[in-house]
């Protein structure tokens, strides 16, 4: 087993999307340098006002620095926010290209009509999509995801509004109505600002009251959830355990299962038993083996990955190895260590059982061994089985990631 000492490295320079206002540049920089992001925001704003440097620098930093927030959330959703940017920009450019082609061919109503219309349509589509997706929230988002979703929703809505306003201004400009429009708008703006200043204190008080009420509601909802969960699973298990009191093995198994479930629920809020990611599938396989053969199986998994064919193969091979260890390990506990690296998946299945001499392998066990090694190799990975009589067995599975 490779040594696992982690050298203390300074935190890498990243954008911090969890704390972000726009792109998380100031939050990430502040974290790395140990100063409050607000100070950095002021610096950027000042630099922007003095010649636009701040904007350029911010833009460059945004494009160059990778986002920290990404690696915190588990890799569940396939189209990341970066990919949807590419798709959106790509489609936008293609439509723009088609429009320009029509313009060149003369199928054109006129610049003054088409461009404002296109801008307004784009802005309207953004705003519409915003309100539509707000009506159907994603299932069970974590706190960070919810906050980030709220932030990006605000950003998109703002962009949509900006586009529609821009379209209106463009239309007025094309028709030489810009100056008269300004004369008309100015008094309205003045009245609005005055009204806002007068009503602001009432508004703030109202909003704050609503926020407090919502927080209280969320708290009581969480309390109700906790009570329900305790009732459903933990109380039932305790009742079962009392009934099986003279069967220590069954009691131990019940206790272990409940411990696993409670731990998973406390940690992630996701119900145990979902085969959604590599780590979850591995833990599930271990739990099933444990239940079936009555041997404790410990799983330690570092990192996580999506469950593609290769990962499935690893999980299946690992399950074989675990079942093997449980069956022939004579009751010794089985330990599973899995590590998800950037370039490969690693799983070690170890037991402290009697071990065996690789040379003198009984026929049925050789078949099982083939199913482990063979399965891994079919998917481009490797499997190695080390064993010494009296020292236990270790199965080492490695699979390169796509």
């Amino acid at each position: 087993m490779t040594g696992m000492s982690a050298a203390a490295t300074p935190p890498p320079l990243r954008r911090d999307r969890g704390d972000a206002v726009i792109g998380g540049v100031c939050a990430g920089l502040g974290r790395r340098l140990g100063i409050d992001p607000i100070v950095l925001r002021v610096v950027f704003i000042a630099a922007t006002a003095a010649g636009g440097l701040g904007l350029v620098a911010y833009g460059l930093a945004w494009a160059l620095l990778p986002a920290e927030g990404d690696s915190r959330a588990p890799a569940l959703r396939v189209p990341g926010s970066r990919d949807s940017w590419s798709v959106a920009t790509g489609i936008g450019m293609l439509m723009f290209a088609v429009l320009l082609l029509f313009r060149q061919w003369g199928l054109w109503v006129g610049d003054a009509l088409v461009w404002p219309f296109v801008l307004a349509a784009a802005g309207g589509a953004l705003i519409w999509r915003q309100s539509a997706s707000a009506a159907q929230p994603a299932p069970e988002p974590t706190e960070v995801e919810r906050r980030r979703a709220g932030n990006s929703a605000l950003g998109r809505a703002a962009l949509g509004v900006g586009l529609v306003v821009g379209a209106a201004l463009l239309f007025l400009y094309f028709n030489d109505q810009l100056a008269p429009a300004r004369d008309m708008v100015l008094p309205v703006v003045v009245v609005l600002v005055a009204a806002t200043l007068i009503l602001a204190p009432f508004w703030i008080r109202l909003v704050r009251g609503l926020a407090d009420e919502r927080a209280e509601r969320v708290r009581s909802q969480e309390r109700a959830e906790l009570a329900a969960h305790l009732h459903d699973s933990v109380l039932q298990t305790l009742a079962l355990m009392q009934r099986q009191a003279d069967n220590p093995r069954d009691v131990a198994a019940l206790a272990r299962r409940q411990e696993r479930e409670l731990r998973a629920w406390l940690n992630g809020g996701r119900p145990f038993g979902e085969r959604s990611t590599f780590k979850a599938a591995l833990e599930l396989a271990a739990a099933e083996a444990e239940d079936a053969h009555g041997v404790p199986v410990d799983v330690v998994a570092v990192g996580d990955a999506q469950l593609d064919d290769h990962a499935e193969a690893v999980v299946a091979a690992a399950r074989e190895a675990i079942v093997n260890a449980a069956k022939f390990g004579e009751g010794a506990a089985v330990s599973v260590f899995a590590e998800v690296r950037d370039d490969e998946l690693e799983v070690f299945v170890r037991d402290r059982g009697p071990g065996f001499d690789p040379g003198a392998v009984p026929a049925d066990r050789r078949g099982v061994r083939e199913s482990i090694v063979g399965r891994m190799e079919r998917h481009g990975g490797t499997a190695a089985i080390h064993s010494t009589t009296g020292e236990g067995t270790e199965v080492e599975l490695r699979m390169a990631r796509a």
Partner: protein
Amino acid sequence: MNRFDPASLAAGLVICALGTLLLLDQLEVLDLRFGYLWPALLGTIGAILLAFGLTGKRR
């Protein structure tokens, strides 16, 4: 990994198309003007972005 990458195929074809357009202009078969250049360039870049975005490389 020797898996087929459809995005590269699409991007390659689109770039070949653009190159052919440019070649035909240079050989005086077509007359490429800005009015046609903008759609060609934007369409190429847009298609490439779309292809890459739809099949994002996992890391």
